């Protein structure tokens, strides 16, 4: 099965509101990254966490390796936040593998 289970698959927000995305991991992960993929396909690095919580503007992310999950909170959503958000986890080991979730398509509407 998938090692990285991301939810929801799609999310619609009105401007100014907020919500959370979540990734559950079926194996122990050493670190997690969150990306935003824009309409051109570019992946923008949002967060890298080996543990704990980080905040950047209207975004906040948490990684709990013991309970095998990570979250991305978006507050005060803006139109430019629209796009696909991916979490990706480093499983460690010598295979240098970064495993992606299936993504969350976020649509922010006026």
């Amino acid at each position, binding site marked *: 099965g998938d090692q990285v289970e991301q939810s929801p698959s799609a999310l619609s927000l009105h401007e100014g509101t907020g919500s959370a995305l979540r990734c559950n991991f079926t194996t122990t992960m*050493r*670190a997690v*990254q969150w*990306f935003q993929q824009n309409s*051109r*396909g*570019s*992946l923008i*690095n949002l967060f*890298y966490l*080996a543990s704990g919580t980080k905040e950047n503007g209207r975004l906040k992310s948490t990684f709990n390796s013991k309970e095998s999950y990570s979250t991305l909170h978006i507050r005060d959503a803006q139109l430019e936040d629209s796009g696909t958000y*991916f979490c*990706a986890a*480093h499983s*460690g*080991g*010598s*295979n*240098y*593998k*970064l*495993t*992606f*979730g*299936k*993504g969350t398509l976020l649509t922010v509407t006026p």
Partner: protein
Amino acid sequence: AQTIHQWPVAEIKAVGSPLSLGCTIKGKSSPNLYWYWQATGGTLQQLFYSITVGQVESVVQLNLSASRPKDDQFILSTEKLLLSHSGFYLCAWSPPKGWDTEVFFGKGTRLTVV
């Protein structure tokens, strides 16, 4: 600052034709390098990684090959394209400090096989 450049930006190729995609990383010595593939509307799947010149490891077999001829260059290729090769190819790099450091992506190459 590190920069990653992928070429070409987009390609339309015929089934059975050869393919070569390239990636160059500047500003970082001996980076770990990766190739990822994304089907339209899908997630990203790691194809190859390389931790040093001349050494490439395959993660998923998709009738593609990769090479690292220089420290800052990573090439993805095949002699015969399949329809299933269509998609978005992204090159990525991470610092040479282990296997779980932050990964950074290039802008990608969009490949359409017809």
